[in-house]
């Protein structure tokens, strides 16, 4: 989220967009574009897939915005669309004949394009390696909750709305995920120092 991070301002934009104000709709799209892109990238690990999916998610949001009754729940509603979109993508990919792992593709391409930032790129590659190793240690529920909370920065109430689960279930999953995170020295150490 960039300049506008105020819930009230988001609600105002959503209401105007619902009334057909194209400028507000454009602002809303620009506001959430990066958040949705990174959210998708984190779950697909491919830039091209993330771009395609983000486009689809934003289109679906624009198409269905009129149906949103409670504008104060826009964020959770929008992320629910995104989560379902990503799930569909993985489901289709599982049965696809051309199911190739695009993992690390973007980095290999970037390494060949930018020789100067090789060290930086290798560090990024290392981060994703550790991040995925950690994510694999979590159960599906724990992983979803952890990423929604600390990568996508959703509130516990919003996560509950996105995943259709009670707040206590979300907290339990989050607690377990954080315990595993504490026990994971590799990613833990990397984050202590920052980039």
């Amino acid at each position, binding site marked *: 989220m960039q300049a506008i991070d105020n819930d009230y301002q988001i609600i105002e934009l959503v209401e105007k967009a619902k009334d*057909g104000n*194209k400028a507000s*709709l454009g602002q809303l*799209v620009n506001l959430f*574009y*990066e958040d949705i*892109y*990174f959210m998708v*990238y*984190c779950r697909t690990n491919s*830039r091209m897939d*993330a*771009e395609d999916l*983000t*486009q689809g998610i*934003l*289109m679906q949001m*624009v198409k269905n915005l009129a149906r949103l009754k409670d504008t104060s729940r826009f964020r959770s509603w929008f992320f629910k669309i995104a989560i379902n979109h990503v799930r569909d993508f993985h489901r289709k990919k599982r049965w696809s004949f051309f199911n190739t792992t695009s993992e690390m593709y*973007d*980095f290999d391409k*970037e390494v060949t394009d930018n020789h100067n930032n090789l060290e930086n790129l290798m*560090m*990024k590659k290392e*981060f*994703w390696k550790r*991040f995925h190793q950690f994510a694999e240690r979590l159960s599906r529920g724990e992983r979803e909750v952890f990423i929604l909370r*600390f*990568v*996508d*920065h959703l509130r*516990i109430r919003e996560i509950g709305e996105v995943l259709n689960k009670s707040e206590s279930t979300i*907290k339990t999953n*989050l*607690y377990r995920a*954080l*315990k595993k*995170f*504490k026990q994971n020295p590799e*990613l*833990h150490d*990397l*984050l*202590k120092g*920052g*980039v």
Partner: protein
Amino acid sequence: MKGMDIHLNEDQIIKAVVDQNDLSADERSHLSTCSVCQGKKKQFEQELNNLGRMVKECAPLPERKLIPLYQEPLQKSWGSWFWRPVFVCGVALILLIAGIWFSTPYKSYREYKTAQLIEEIEDDQKFMDAIEVLEEKVLFNFYPDVSGEPYSYVDDEFLEFIFPLEESQYST
């Protein structure tokens, strides 16, 4: 938590990071006053914030531009995009038919066709009259005398000669 000098353990710190309200009242009051526990919690939260930041920093930026997501709303008076060309085609067709119907060349063509038809009917009538005349008078006036055709010769005597009656047969 009985004494204020007992710090929160790792699990309690995690609990506090998840939701501070899930701690007991004693734990909460300790956390609100203990700088050590606050520091631990803050450090843990900082690590988690770093994770979110690093995901964004380490992910490649999107290169493709967004395709426009919305279109101009349709004008209600014109209806949908399907009906507009249909309506225009219909009007054009009606105008074309009316133009042809009332145009001068077509009118004169109709008059010409009517005159032609009347002429044909008159010719037919003449032809039928000629046939009727021929039917009644097949030969010219003097030919019936030559051929012995006038039917005035066909009298009872002649017929009796051709088809004799039974009585006359017995008499002979």
